[in-house]
């Protein structure tokens, strides 16, 4: 494969994945509105298109057409940079996520992941940790006390829960002996659901910790103190309007999808089927390529539904409860899990 072919294929992959990701974000919003609606015993959006399916497109158009205000007294460069940072970080981490079997494509080219790097998991963690700046700068540069409070809460929450999140993944990494996401998936794919890290790897505790920390990392209910409407009138994005507000909104849902992808890859067997080798892989080339993608999307979809379900069920935590829980319970349990996993691996 020549360098030109490589660049063209890579550009194609980037374009396709970005479009799919943006559509995914738009329809995650619809999924949330529909599901929360059903949880609250109402219909949710159902006027635009069949079953309200065109709602996200109309919402997007509305965001573009609204007046783009820049309030007085803001620190303009940082005010403009913040939404770009937020959405950029949310979209970048998908670049290392593998969606399906390797080596499907022309001349053994890895078509089903944008890039396959040795330190894939660390790249995701690094990009996520940079996403904090979007929120922190948005709050500070808006020159508004509610935004500042919201962003301070967000930064403290993100930094605190990032520790528990990172540590909960260490057990999985130790089992796989690699930070490469493809290796991690292949290591747990042998017998399907029985060897997934969540069950076969005895990483159930790690999965629960990851789940809780991920909810906090994405500023979602029950940890959505960042934008607690009743206290902060909206939080860090209060001074943003039009598409800039929509960019924060999209970043939040993009992060949800990213977190779902990581959970799928690390704990739920990635693109492999839950039946493992019991059902032999289809011989048809197209089916061989499409089935893994279907499993992957299905798992991420279930994760997103869980997100919405929790949002529709649990009330918001108090701020000190949030901090206490993160540092005094989640972090020690995550460390204990690492110790237990390493002891087990050493014993075996």
């Amino acid at each position, binding site marked *: 494969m020549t360098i030109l072919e490589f660049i063209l294929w890579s550009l194609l992959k980037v374009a396709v994945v970005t479009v799919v990701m943006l559509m995914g974000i738009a329809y995650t919003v619809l999924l949330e509105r529909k599901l929360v609606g059903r949880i609250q015993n109402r219909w949710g959006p159902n006027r635009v298109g069949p079953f309200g399916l065109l709602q996200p497109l109309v919402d997007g158009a509305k965001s573009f057409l609204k007046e783009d205000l820049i309030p007085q007294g803001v620190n303009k460069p940082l005010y403009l940079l913040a939404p770009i940072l937020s959405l950029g970080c949310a979209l970048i981490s998908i670049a290392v996520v593998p969606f399906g079997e390797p080596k499907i494509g022309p001349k053994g080219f890895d078509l089903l992941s944008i890039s396959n790097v*040795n330190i894939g998991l660390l790249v995701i963690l690094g990009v996520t940790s940079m996403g904090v*700046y979007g929120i922190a700068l948005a709050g500070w540069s808006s020159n508004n006390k509610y935004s500042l409070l919201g962003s301070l809460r967000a930064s*403290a929450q993100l*930094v605190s829960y990032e520790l528990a999140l990172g540590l909960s993944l260490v057990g999985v990494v130790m089992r796989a002996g690699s930070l490469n996401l493809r290796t991690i998936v292949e290591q747990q794919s042998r017998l399907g659901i029985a060897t997934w890290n969540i069950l076969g790897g005895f990483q159930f505790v790690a999965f629960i910790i990851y789940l809780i920390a991920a909810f906090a990392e994405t500023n979602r209910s029950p940890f959505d103190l960042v934008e607690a409407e009743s206290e902060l009138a909206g939080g860090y994005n209060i001074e943003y309007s039009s598409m800039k507000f929509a960019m924060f909104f999209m970043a939040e849902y993009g992060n949800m999808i990213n977190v779902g992808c990581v959970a799928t890859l690390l704990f739920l067997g990635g693109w492999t089927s839950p039946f493992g080798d019991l059902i032999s892989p289809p011989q048809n080339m197209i089916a061989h390529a499409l089935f893994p993608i279907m499993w992957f999307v299905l798992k991420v979809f279930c994760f997103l539904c869980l997100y919405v379900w929790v949002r529709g069920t649990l009330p918001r935590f108090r701020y000190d409860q949030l901090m206490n829980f993160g540092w005094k319970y989640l972090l020690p349990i995550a460390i204990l899990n690492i110790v237990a996993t390493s002891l087990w691996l050493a014993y075996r």
Partner: protein
Amino acid sequence: MHLIVFILFAVLCLAGAVNLLLQTHPINSALSLIVVMTSLAVLYLLLGAEFLAAAQVIVYSGAIMVLFTFVVMLLNAGREERTLGSKAAKRIGFPAVVVILAVLTTLLLHVEGLGAAGPNTPISTTEDLSTVLFTNLLLPFEVTSVLILIAILGAVALARKGHGDQPPADNSTQEGTVAK
């Protein structure tokens, strides 16, 4: 290809460093420092140190600098005044910096194997790095962790000083205290 990326990020790194000194607003300086650290991570990556690059981004740009910006925001530090500089700095400071740089450069140039890493060195995997860290460098590594523990304890002691009669703070870490 490597050369282009190197030049790009080296220039970015230096520009960030110069901007860090020139800016009068603390938050701009802090952001420049983030640019410096992130470009350094890319330079590490070019030298084949992938784990180091990721750790640089996660630990320095992602965690430590967040605390920096955090403190700047909380104090709401204003723009600093630009002075013409003191005479002492001009007469002693600059020559001293030149001398120190010269001494360091001479010493570093005599170190064996310096500059051997380059675009063609094989990428040192996380496994290689941890093998070295937990065998050859085990003692310094453990001593460093004790050092950091002492620093944390010191921070907690300092943060709790002054309101000793109140019930102990419910956040046992520095971040928590700052957040309060």
